[in-house]
């Protein structure tokens, strides 16, 4: 299936599923709090089913996480009814719940820096009467909460004595093919409903709603002419719920860190960890990765115009962010009002593709040397990345321009060439694509596009070149503002690495007879075995 076809199918399924399962009225929990219906959340792996490497990583994370000052007493009630049976034995469901709640406890102890954690009590399966609506927890939540709470009380665990109550039901009532709701969560509040999944990211996400956090979104903006751009006036931007692939309150299946607006909303990012930029002077900040245990600066809040506030943070593949995609690594910029009650935020896509889709949402970060200029003229420049990222924020910047030409390095390879180049001066708008031109001494020429939209890379291997000819290689870069000139051409003559043989036996000139044993070692150029 082509990429576009996959996207079309995924989109259609989500739209149909949303129409089928989204309740028409705002749902409320037994305490009268609003409940968020998570129909667009993709469950990641369950902690109990994690790979050995993931299990090792989670054990390390658990050991590193600070102790919690406040342990939220959490009751988990697995529920079934006639027509929606148990999906595992009592022992197994308890094991699964303990594994996921251990992961959630580690997560919250880590990101809250020891402010909260979870201590969990899990009951055996509790049978309740069949809900009036056969399928869909968004319709059954009231019935489940009422009946399962009564059953829990009978089992000696009164839900009103707990800080969090999680009901887990299987998906059997709806059938295996049902694209259901992964979970529901009071926002804020203390109730969670899970349907057919005990995925770590879903549990952490719903517990995030309990803390009062909304979703982390993705901003899809276009110019007046309909071309994709990083940010435009509000009427030219759409917000994709869950589209933030780094944040567990978006759609990070591996439960990555809350983004800076969420942490700030919870009061978990303050003091030296958060800088506020309102100055008209250019200022450079040294950001620690959000997932690091450092108490030093991790995010900058930058006041823009027209009610905009930008949040700048640095993401690396480390700690709880260890599995984020390559296109999410680097400096990320979000929009989010500091006063937003639910900590709402939208990540800005620094490398917007022609279409906004699931793939495009995975490449949003600025890498080293890259810069972006906001509509009001604030330029964010990433000076360097590594253990820290140095980011300069400069107001009243000139409008972004097309990039400068890159400077390529070209190495001859066997019947080919390897071309690499550094990030060029992008003049205020990130490079989206490179083009590599290879001109042969016989006058023919081929162009190769190196898009940054799915996988940022600045190397290209050109195979199939004739070693009897000389080639001239040049590179140019394109950003939103236009295309650079071609770089100065670099000449290369491909290598011709012929196979060789080393004899070990018999010796040269030896006398032989009968069965002759010949020992030798062949050597072939890489990729040319035959």
């Amino acid at each position: 299936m082509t990429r576009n076809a996959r996207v079309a199918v995924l989109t259609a399924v989500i739209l149909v599923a949303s129409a089928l399962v989204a309740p028409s009225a705002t749902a409320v929990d037994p305490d009268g709090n609003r409940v968020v219906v998570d129909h667009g959340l993709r469950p990641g792996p369950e902690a109990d089913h994690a790979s050995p490497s993931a299990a090792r990583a989670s054990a390390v994370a658990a050991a590193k996480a600070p102790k919690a000052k406040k342990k939220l007493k959490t009751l988990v009630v697995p529920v079934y009814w006639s027509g929606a049976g148990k999906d595992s034995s009592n022992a197994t469901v308890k094991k699964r719940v303990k594994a996921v709640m251990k992961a959630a406890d580690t997560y919250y102890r880590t990101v809250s820096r020891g402010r909260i954690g979870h201590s969990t009590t899990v009951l055996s399966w509790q049978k309740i009467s069949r809900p009036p609506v056969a399928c869909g927890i968004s319709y059954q939540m009231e019935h489940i909460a009422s009946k399962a709470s009564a059953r829990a009380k009978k089992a000696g665990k009164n839900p009103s004595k707990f800080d969090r109550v999680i009901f887990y039901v299987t998906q059997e009532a709806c059938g295996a093919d049902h694209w259901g709701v992964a979970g529901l969560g009071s926002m804020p509040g203390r109730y969670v409903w899970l349907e057919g999944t005990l995925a770590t990211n879903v549990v952490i996400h719903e517990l995030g709603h309990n803390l009062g956090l909304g979703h982390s979104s993705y901003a899809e903006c276009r110019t007046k002419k309909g071309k994709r751009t990083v940010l435009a006036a509000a009427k030219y931007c759409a917000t994709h719920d869950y589209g933030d692939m780094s944040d567990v309150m978006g759609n990070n299946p591996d439960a990555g860190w809350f983004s800076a607006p969420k942490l700030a909303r919870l009061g978990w990012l303050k003091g030296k960890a958060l800088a506020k930029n309102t100055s008209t002077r250019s200022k450079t900040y040294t950001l620690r990765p959000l997932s690091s245990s450092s108490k030093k600066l991790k995010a900058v809040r930058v006041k823009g115009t027209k009610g905009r506030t930008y949040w700048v943070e640095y993401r690396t593949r480390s700690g709880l962010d260890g599995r984020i995609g390559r296109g999410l690594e680097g400096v990320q910029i979000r929009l989010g009002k500091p006063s937003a009650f639910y900590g709402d935020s939208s990540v800005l896509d620094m490398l917007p593709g022609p279409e906004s889709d699931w793939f495009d949402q995975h490449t949003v970060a600025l890498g080293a040397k890259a810069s972006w200029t906001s509509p009001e003229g604030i330029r964010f420049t990433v000076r360097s990345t590594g253990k820290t990222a140095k980011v300069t924020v400069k107001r009243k910047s000139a409008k972004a321009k097309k990039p400068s030409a890159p400077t390529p390095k070209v190495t001859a390879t066997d019947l080919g060439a390897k071309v690499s180049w550094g990030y060029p001066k992008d003049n205020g708008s990130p490079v989206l694509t490179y083009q590599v031109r290879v001109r042969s001494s016989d006058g023919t020429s081929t162009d190769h596009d190196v898009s940054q939209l799915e996988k940022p890379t600045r190397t290209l291997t050109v195979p199939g070149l004739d070693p009897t000819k000389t080639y001239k290689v040049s590179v140019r870069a394109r950003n939103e503002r236009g295309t650079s000139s071609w770089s100065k051409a670099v000449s290369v003559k491909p290598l011709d690495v012929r196979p060789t043989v080393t004899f070990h036996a018999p010796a040269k000139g030896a006398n032989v007879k009968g069965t002759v044993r010949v020992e030798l070692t062949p050597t072939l150029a890489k990729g040319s075995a035959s």
Partner: protein
Amino acid sequence: MWVSLVTIDGGFENYLATQGFSDWDGTLATGRRVTAQLAAPAVGSAMSAVIRVELYDSYGRTTTIDLPVTLVP
């Protein structure tokens, strides 16, 4: 890759025994030692011969190396 025992008589090459190796069947890999067993015919008197290795790569490039030996009775 072909490993052969060859006699050369006045410009005429006589392949007495040959064994083939290929990465397709896993018998050939770059940098890995290969052992060939060639059955030499009985001869009445000593004669000059070569162990010839013809190595081809997937781009069609060939290397031919002859190791001189003497075939003895």
